[in-house]
């Protein structure tokens, strides 16, 4: 019996492209820690992502990985999991990738409930393209040359949208608390069905004001909600800085099992014969 792997054994050793102080380092550490805690086989785990700073993460882990195009990580991950249910599939990305260009996939992944975990590292900004407003940017954030008066659009509420479209497991973490992210992620991976882990992951390069998050983030003390209307009330009223497992209402993952009479290729050919 080999010695259990340590968190560092789940990292590839490739140096991240991230800026010093980026919240994503915490998420990378938490991913490695959760994988070690669950003793996941590196050969049977796949990290899938789209495009953006956070989507670089798969290359920094030592597992299988798929770094695809912008916004489509969830689609790749669901195809993979449906085709290979034996694998552990974790999808990662940022707020632009997941809620803007990939927003439609987010809606339908929540609905479909394939047994994958989705981590969104939300820094409320497009970092890789150098600081434009994203769907979660505050309405009056005027630091981008592209939208000098602020985006002027109310921010997207990830947890509320996830709830409305049927996600059965919704949690929030904060990059200032990597141990909590690791704990939530372990739970998310073990949850049977779609699990959505929203991580407030600060970008001090383009949004230095996010260092203030430390003071306002607080951990949920109550048990996770199981009633969707109560959760809706919470997600519309809250500030968005409560962390922990917020909502949990399990339902059967997709695809459902159907009794099916097997057929051979010859049987199928027969249907095309006169």
């Amino acid at each position, binding site marked *: 019996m080999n010695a259990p792997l340590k968190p560092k054994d789940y990292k590839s050793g490739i140096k991240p492209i991230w800026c010093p102080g980026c919240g994503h380092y915490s998420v990378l550490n938490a991913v490695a820690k959760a994988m070690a805690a669950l003793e996941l086989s590196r050969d049977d785990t796949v990290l899938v992502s789209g495009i953006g700073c956070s989507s670089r993460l798969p*290359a920094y882990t030592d597992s299988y990985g798929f770094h695809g195009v912008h916004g489509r990580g969830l689609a790749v991950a669901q195809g*993979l999991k*449906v085709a290979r249910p034996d694998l552990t599939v974790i999808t990662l990305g940022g707020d632009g990738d997941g809620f803007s260009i990939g927003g439609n996939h987010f809606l339908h992944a929540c609905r479909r409930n394939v047994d994958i975990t989705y981590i969104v590292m939300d820094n409320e900004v497009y970092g890789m393209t150098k600081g434009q407003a994203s769907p979660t940017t505050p309405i009056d954030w005027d630091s981008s040359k592209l939208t000098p008066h602020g985006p002027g659009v109310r921010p997207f509420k990830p947890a509320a949208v996830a709830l409305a479209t049927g996600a059965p497991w919704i949690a929030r973490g904060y990059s200032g608390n990597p141990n909590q992210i690791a704990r939530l992620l372990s739970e998310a991976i073990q949850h049977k069905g779609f699990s959505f882990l929203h991580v407030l992951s600060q970008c001090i390069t383009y949004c230095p004001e996010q260092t203030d998050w430390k003071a306002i983030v607080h951990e949920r003390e109550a048990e996770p909600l199981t009633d969707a209307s109560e959760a809706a009330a919470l997600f519309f009223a809250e500030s968005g800085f409560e962390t922990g497992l917020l909502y949990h209402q399990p339902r059967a993952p997709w695809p459902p099992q159907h009794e099916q009479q097997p057929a051979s290729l010859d049987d199928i050919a027969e249907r095309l014969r006169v």
Partner: protein
Amino acid sequence: MTRDGLSIAITGAGGAGAISCGEMLLRAWAAAGGRGLLRKAFGPQIRGGEAAALLTLTDSEDYTAATHYDLLLALDWLNFERFEDEIRLADHAAVVCESPGDAPEFIKAARFQDVAFKQLAADSHPEGRSNMLALGLLGRALELPVESLCELAEQRLASRPQAYRDAARAGIEAGFELELSLPRPAPARGEPGAWCMSGNQAAAYGALDAGIRFVAAYPITPASDLLEWMAGPLEQLGGHLVQAEDELAAINMALGASFGGVPAFTATSGPGLALMSESIGLAVASETPVCIVNVQRGGPSTGIPTKSEQSDLDIALHGLHGDAPHLVLAPLDIGDCVFTTGWAVHLAAALQTPAIVLSDQFLGQSTAVVSEPRRHRAEPGQVVASDGDYLRYRLTASGVSAMAVPGDSDRRFTADGLEHNERGTPSASQTDHQQQLDKRRHKLDAHEFGEDWAEVAGEGELALLCFGSSAAAVRAAAARLARSGTAVRSVAIRLLAPLPVAELHDALEGCSRALVVEQNHSAQLFHYLRSQMGVDVPLRSYARPGPVPLNPDELCEFINQEMLP
């Protein structure tokens, strides 16, 4: 009866059952040993539009769409004027209809036979329907046994209430009693063992036969029925089909499954192919196999969704950004949809790249009676050595490197759409980019594609070049010209990218001139061949857009006027 068999048009308002009448008539004809083609023409509406089952009944399998019909059976005249371009009657044609006085101006000259469909159907059974009466009437004209028609109708209505089946039988029997003077085909006398299928069914079967076990797709006309037919058999073979939220998801789901080692497939039409383009480029860069069948329709934009065209050649060849070598194939007829789709699946797997298959509405939604189709058999897989340190994108002599799949021990890598080095680590270096571009180009150029790249027939100094569904009209035109003393060579190209240029030159050896035939407006194949082949053979173009299928008459006329001394 015309030279190419007996042609029958059955028309009616959408929902009147013209198409199902045509389908059952073709099946009964096939069961009696006949050969034939059923082309479907409809408007964009589901109900209340117009629908036509356009049948050609023959004793051979050289199917082209008929240009003139020997027999028109109109269940009603609703919206019939929309068929003015598509349904032309032969001089001797008979028209069977309810109220000849309502017939549009442009068919007035024909010979009418008045049949009170609605009344006779209602008299036969309270639920009686005109289309079943028409089936019986036409069945008699074709000398088909009434019992085979009734059995087909009962099979088709198996899930419906008994009253429907009783009504169908009663209608067919009542129609069979009618004695009309109608044109008759040559007797059916084909070899037994035929298949009766649409090109969409054939492509779906070819994909399954070649090992496809994962499909993700978004509904789109005229590809939806391919996917619908595939769903059941795929599941019975242990595979999975995901109805995706859009084409962007469909192609990426397919890539995810393929990355997991499960052969993956999607089918779409022009607008969907456009949406998929970015991720087909991802398949090229990450070297992930996938097969995409594009059932082409009239374009651009929404275009003519229900009708055929070959105008997606350009996007299939050149629609990916960056330098993105990939495979493009086109089936040459309905039976060949089995072979070409299977070949595309195998090539995609062997070369770890996407393969686009250009079918079209004419092939996809027409049903033909064909001899047992050829299936593609995969060559034994090359074992690509990966001794020592595993490098996913290792530079090898063939350009193909070993593809690990999750679960393989200690061959972990991250597939990437970013340019990368041999290991797969993102890299923006001049050397890595050059090497990986060379690798992805070389693996296609170095592959031996064999003789299936085209079907070459005939001799002569005049060559007709085409791809995909135009092959039918080209072959028929070549045969007709040969009969009238002009030797013609036909080259129907199945493998469009990479184009086997040397083989193409060999096929044209001794030709003094060649005509490139295609169904689109901008002569896409013509310009592509010119760019690839140099100027050894003077090429001329015959390019006509859809929706009316290309036919040998127009080709012969053009060749006689423009290309023969």
